[in-house]
């Protein structure tokens, strides 16, 4: 290249790096060719060979009470709360979205009876339903514990726990727990995990939220489309 006579306007230009120039030229010439060749090679879907189902004989009939996914054999650790917390729901008469639920029936939800017997379980109709608690005045809430029905191994769906300042749940609504992954209750798609019902109930920490109203949603369970409640406790103390 240096033997070539450069045009006058280029004579004062710095001498070119010949190695880099050659490399660049090669890339410029061959890269399009490579890309064209790749484009010309037809792509096909990746076919995965998936294993077929294996034969399984009649499964064993498990005795009642036995859970295949073993629950923790240790009691749930105690939630640490400020002193003076009481069950604010004790004896309260909740309301419900199920207009067929009578006051007598709903009163069983706060009667202190948490046994897994038919007479302690309150049935609400199927579909998304809620029960609501009016604490009378705003309180500092630290835990909500809910027992649906734990007479058999089951999982409740679309469990949502909310607190608010008004009965219509329009003011200062806070969601404490939401495993409604499909948003069937209309309170937003939740990310909390579903859980197995046990005699311990589901403890939802309320972290000191101040509210007068508590609402609990559900939509059936793995055994039935009906909604069931055995007991609800709302632990807190009056706002100072």
């Amino acid at each position, binding site marked *: 290249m240096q033997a070539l006579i450069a045009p006058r306007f280029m004579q004062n230009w710095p001498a070119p790096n010949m190695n880099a120039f050659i490399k660049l030229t090669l890339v410029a010439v061959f890269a399009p060719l490579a890309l064209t060749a790749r484009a010309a090679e037809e792509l096909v879907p990746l076919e*995965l060979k998936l294993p077929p189902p294996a034969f399984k004989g*009649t*499964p064993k009939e498990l005795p009642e009470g036995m859970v295949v996914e073993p629950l923790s054999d240790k009691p749930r650790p105690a939630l640490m709360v400020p002193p003076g917390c009481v069950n604010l729901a004790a004896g309260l008469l909740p309301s419900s979205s199920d207009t067929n639920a009578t006051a007598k029936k709903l009163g069983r939800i706060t009667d202190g009876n948490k046994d897994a017997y038919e007479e302690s379980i309150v049935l609400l109709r199927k579909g998304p*339903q809620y029960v609501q608690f009016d604490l009378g005045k705003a309180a500092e809430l630290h835990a909500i514990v809910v027992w649906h029905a734990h007479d058999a*191994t089951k999982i409740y769906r679309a469990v949502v726990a909310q607190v608010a300042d008004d009965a219509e749940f329009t003011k200062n609504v806070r969601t404490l727990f939401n495993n409604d992954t*499909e948003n069937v209750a*209309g309170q937003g798609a939740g990310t909390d995990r579903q859980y197995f019902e046990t005699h311990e109930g589901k403890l939802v920490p309320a972290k000191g939220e101040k509210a007068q109203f508590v609402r609990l949603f559900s939509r059936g369970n*793995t*055994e039935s489309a009906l909604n069931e409640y055995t007991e609800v406790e709302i632990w807190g103390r009056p706002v100072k």
Partner: protein
Amino acid sequence: MKSWATFLFFVALLVGAALRLPDLGNRPMHNDEAVNAIKFGALWERGEYRYDPHEYHGPTLHYLTAVLCGITGAPAFEKLDETRLRLISALAGLGLILLVPFIRDELGKVGAAAVAIFTAVSPLMVFYSRYWIHEMLLVLFSFLAMVAVWRWMRKPRWIYALVAGAAIGLMQATKETFVLALSAALAGGCVNALWTQARPQAGTRTLWTGRLVLVAAAAWGAIWLLFFSSFFQNWVGLMDSVRTYEPWLRNAGDDSIHSQPVGFYWERLFWFAPKGGLISSEALLLLLALVGALSGFVGNRDSGGRTDFVRWLAVYTFSLATIYTIIPYKTPWCALGFHHGIILLAGVGVAVGWHACKSFTARMAFAFVLMIGVAHLGWQAWRGSFEQISARSNPWVYSQTSPDLLNLVDAVEAVTGSGEGTASVIQVIGANDDYWPLPWYLRQYPKVGWWNHWDRNTSASLVIASAESKLGLEAEGAYRMVGYFQLRPQVFMELYVERQLWERYLASRPAPKPD
């Protein structure tokens, strides 16, 4: 048959049909139904069937279902439904009623009418007439063999020998446990022969001519050859029909997962008292059967039937019940064989009771009590097959798939609708391959893989995993765990959906309506 007996027979047929035929798809497929359904799929789609000496039992269930599907213009396998499959069992259950007139001489007219009614309303008979498993066919062919042999005993005709041989062949081609029914039948024959030898009766003939025995044996052999060779496509199947007894004898032993106490069948048949539920019982039939059985050995029995048949039947039923009671391996449907014997004896018991009632008033009172008992049985049959179809308070429900599994199937269909539809890649992980009947319900998805462990190299849009596996896939970041679904009581599956697909699915759903 006299007109009243004919009337009762048709009532039994009508009631039997009303309890067996409607809404056959009202219960999710059982593990065993689904396993056989997938094997049936190969026969239906490609004409492929090979007898497996280790599993699946005999070929008649699959072939007869294929015939029925062919006759009724069934669609492709992925569009078949539970109703279409279960129809063969329902028809087998009705077949037990239809065969009763052919044994009226042995039972007597009253006994035959009672047997038809009891068969129609027995909760056990009804429940498993709605189950696509081999048992009801085995009982039908056993009864057919019984009818043919006893007809042969009265009149030595080649047609009876042919049907008897073919029926025994069909028993063998249905389930390996046919040897138990044959053994019990032989025991009955031996006791009957000894009894008759000790107390010769006029009119008792032995009609086992060599030629007719050959006809029966040839019929048996022909059925064996046809079915076990898969209609001449699999000659190994013939040897397998003998080799099969080695694994099955192992299964019957003490260490089976289905080892049950001695009272397992008896509790379910005659006093099943679930916690908080209603008591289920067919004790009326047992009581009448005891009366019927006794009449074959003592007293002057005058019921229009054959005492030697009753004797044989009593020993047959007792022997079969004893065998099944002793064998540790027990599943509820195995009670069908000896319970059918109890029903036949109960019919005899009704005849004995009816003839013992000398006055019109006594007979009316007897009929009234029977009517109450039959109504109670019918109500239990309805409750067990239409109301408590998957409930554990139903004595015949055993490892039944939970209806909640259909919610999982619906969720899979809904979510894949926002993705690649039936072309979606789905990974199913079952601890110990425990994912049935999902292969039946996901049969329209050609890209489903079945594992007993997590395979991270499969880029599945959905993962369905046993809760027991504790997969915890959401920790990996690529999946959302969207719910638990119950496979069977105490057994749950988790559904994981690829995150972006789940977001697309949620965005595609209409907003929930305010309550």
